[in-house]
């Protein structure tokens, strides 16, 4: 159990720091490009990691470190909500576009990630 907690902790901490750095480097004046990019990239990565590990029967620990930890800590729903609300105050249209791009982009990226890494379509939940 301790090794699982460690795997998730180290992965999650790294994911959060990576997200923080990208947001520092890519300031988003009005449209939240950085979070959009982070959520799409993280979804792609989770799709890849999940199907890659599934097909090779690699350890559960790696799935926890890279999937639950790294991708889970890197992508975020709370900041997405905050930005969608902030953008609504500027422009309902832009906010709608941001929400749309996040959802469609995230799902599409996950799907592509699954297939790039030669994954079967699987019901694995990261």
């Amino acid at each position, binding site marked *: 159990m301790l090794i699982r907690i460690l795997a998730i902790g180290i992965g999650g*901490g790294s994911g959060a720091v990576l997200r923080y750095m990208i947001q520092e480097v890519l300031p988003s004046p009005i449209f939240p490009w950085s979070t959009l990019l982070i959520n799409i990239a993280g979804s792609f990565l989770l799709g890849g990691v999940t199907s890659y590990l599934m097909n090779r029967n690699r350890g559960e620990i790696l799935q926890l470190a890279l*999937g639950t930890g790294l*991708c889970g800590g890197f992508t975020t729903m709370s900041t997405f909500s*905050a930005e969608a609300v902030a953008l609504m105050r500027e422009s309902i249209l832009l906010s709608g576009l941001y929400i749309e791009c996040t959802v469609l982009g995230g799902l599409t990226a996950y799907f592509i990630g699954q297939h790039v890494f030669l994954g079967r*379509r699987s019901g*694995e939940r*990261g």
Partner: protein
Amino acid sequence: MNAVLVWIGGMIGAIARYSVQTYLKRILPESTIPLSILIINLAGSFGLGMCISAGNELNLSWQLFSMTGFLGAFTTFSTFSSESLFLLGKQQYMKAFLYITGSIIGCIFVFFIGNIVAMSLL
């Protein structure tokens, strides 16, 4: 130093997410709609709504630790993508629609409620 604060917050957030998810899966009725991640994302978005309203009361270190680190890692988008596609893949279109709209509209709504609650408290 800032990165260290985010790192520690993110670590605790990810472990908390895994623990809460494991616990919720045990106590919630068996459902094809992934309620555990939905509840986690709703709770974290509500929390961020409160923290952002209280922003002036919190110093930068605390903001990085709790908002960027902890709540950022506690809530997740990648698993949401995975769960949504899982439902779509199983051709559970109604459930997928409910899960996606529930997550997205739900999180935005509770974030807003969190804002209001914090403002009324401060």
